[in-house]
């Protein structure tokens, strides 16, 4: 089977990581372990949803981004900006003010990600009409695409093969700028991302370097832009050219329900990755989910408004986008602009290649060998306490048993088993202590008054 090589944008800063197990317990694919007191991410199982980052109390998990100064490598510097960025600001800041601040940071153009949503929608409808299997699943959210590859590989053929708005708009706008006579190598399109999954998908995809030259985290750009806005004197009138306005549908495309609303038949919109997993599990096992035609699945609660790199509260962001998108023109500007060449180029390049399954495999070998390993896991489970404390460095007892069978952990990693083994004289105290140190790091069991919640925290 062809295996997709996953690029990951989520990184762990070992100096900050205190091996607290929060991320390990939150990970929806069970991809995190603790070793030597630090969290480790299993690369093949991670889907870049960002749940670990959200749960980290020490900000040890971060999203790798490109150096902001890199935009100055290009003469023509484009900020490819999603609607969610506008939603970071309250209604008292106009779109013009926001965009002028971003331009002041050094961008020569600001272009909106959802500008191509109507074209994408048309292609999705076309594919849906020809789909043999229902429900079709939107490929909008890259964390969901990976989740399906890893945990629901049988559903890869249900995915609609169309570019995400960021890719479609980069393709389109690059062509527009070329049409204006700007040489390709002078065009630097930088995407402002609300999440890690988008970065991972962009950097892992073909054609990344040809249209999108880099990624800027939304919180970084927000801080820079907000700083400019705060320091403007009263009565300041921004002067800059605005990108073509978006329609209501385009502005709401990345919101929960933004896609589902525009398809015919039974359409469901589900957000938050655990909700999605729960729904897909049900869909695979019961006949409760019947006659559904279209699924819009998003990894974050409130979709992109809830992205890990968004600064504002997700409910406020969603509400602001709803408000700002009211009373808008209904005709997408993409057809009104005279960029027919770019439009027809996008039409020809709007699809993506079929998505390959990349199932999470616990064991190698023949069915016989795998069955034996599963039997071993069941035997181990007879002894493990089943309270899923995580003190062994695996997310739960079941995972520890599987790790043991894969020779990635030991029975004595379980603190309950250590007590048992000590009682029966199979393990001495010193040895038990060394085992705990191996999982939790050397000085982990020492008194530390500077740790979170302790009396000198922050001193």
């Amino acid at each position, binding site marked *: 089977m062809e295996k997709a090589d996953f690029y990951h944008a989520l990184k762990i800063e070992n100096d900050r990581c205190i091996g607290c197990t929060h991320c390990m317990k939150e990970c929806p694919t069970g991809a995190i372990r603790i070793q030597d007191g630090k969290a480790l991410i299993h690369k093949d199982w991670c889907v870049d949803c960002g749940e670990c980052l959200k749960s980290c109390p020490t900000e040890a998990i971060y999203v790798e981004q490109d150096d902001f100064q890199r935009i100055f490598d290009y003469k023509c510097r484009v900020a490819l900006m999603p609607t969610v960025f506008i939603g970071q600001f309250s209604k008292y800041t106009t779109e013009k003010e926001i965009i002028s601040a971003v331009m002041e940071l050094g961008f020569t153009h600001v272009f909106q990600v959802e500008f191509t949503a109507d074209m994408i929608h048309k292609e999705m409808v076309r594919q849906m009409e020809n789909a043999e299997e229902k429900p079709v699943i939107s490929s909008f959210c890259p964390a969901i695409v990976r989740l399906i590859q890893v945990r629901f590989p049988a559903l890869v053929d249900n995915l609609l093969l169309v570019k995400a708005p960021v890719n479609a708009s980069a393709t389109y706008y690059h062509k527009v700028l070329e049409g204006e006579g700007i040489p390709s190598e002078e065009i630097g399109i930088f995407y402002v991302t609300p999440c890690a999954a988008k970065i991972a998908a962009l950097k892992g995809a073909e054609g990344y370097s040809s249209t999108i030259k880099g990624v800027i985290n939304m919180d970084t750009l927000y801080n820079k832009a907000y700083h400019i806005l705060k320091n403007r004197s009263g009565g300041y009138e921004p002067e800059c050219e605005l990108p073509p306005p978006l329609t209501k549908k385009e502005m709401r495309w990345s919101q929960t329900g933004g896609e589902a609303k525009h398809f015919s038949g039974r359409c469901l919109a589900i957000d938050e990755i655990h909700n999605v997993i729960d729904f897909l599990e049900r869909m695979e096992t019961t*006949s*409760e989910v019947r006659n559904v035609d279209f699924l819009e699945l998003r990894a974050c609660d409130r979709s992109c408004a809830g992205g890990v790199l968004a600064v504002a509260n997700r409910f406020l962001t969603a509400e602001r986008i709803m408000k700002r998108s009211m009373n808008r023109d209904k005709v997408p500007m993409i057809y009104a602009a005279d960029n027919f060449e770019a439009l027809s180029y996008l039409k020809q390049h709007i699809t993506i290649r079929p998505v390959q399954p990349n199932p999470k495999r616990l064991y190698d070998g*023949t*069915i016989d060998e795998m*069955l034996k390993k599963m039997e071993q896991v069941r035997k181990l489970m007879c002894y493990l306490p089943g309270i899923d404390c995580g003190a062994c460095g695996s997310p739960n007892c079941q995972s520890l048993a599987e790790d043991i069978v894969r020779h990635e952990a030991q029975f004595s990693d379980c603190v309950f088993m250590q007590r048992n083994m000590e009682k029966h004289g199979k393990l001495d105290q010193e040895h038990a202590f060394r085992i705990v140190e191996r999982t939790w790091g050397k000085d982990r069991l020492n008194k530390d008054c500077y740790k979170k919640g302790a009396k000198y925290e922050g001193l």
Partner: protein
Amino acid sequence: MLFKFELEGGNFSKVGYASSQIKKVLKQLAIDPRIIKRVVVALYEAEVNVVAHAWRGTVVAKLDADKISLELKDEGPGIPDIPLAMSEGYSTASEAVREMGFGAGMGLPNMKKNVDELTIESQVDVGTTVRMVTWFNKKGA
């Protein structure tokens, strides 16, 4: 490898537990997804049957390297006429069960369609035993 699950007559909120557990195991074994789907559909329908008609029952799943054998044994009213029960659209489900979206008379026919072997033994007012076998290396029925 053996798995056993209990079923409780009338408790539709729990129905599907056995099929979802079995699905997870088959996925881990990297069984062809099309075969997994068929096994899971058949087992789910069988679970629904027990919950809809019987008082209580058990599911025993036996997993071998080449096949999965499922046995659903229940204490219940039994099936007086098995060939009639096997025909599509025939149902003895109560109004209450139909209101929950079950009881379309497709259970047994659907099970038969999705497994390689199906046998039914039943005694009126005592109970029913359904046995199903699916082979992993055999291409679709």
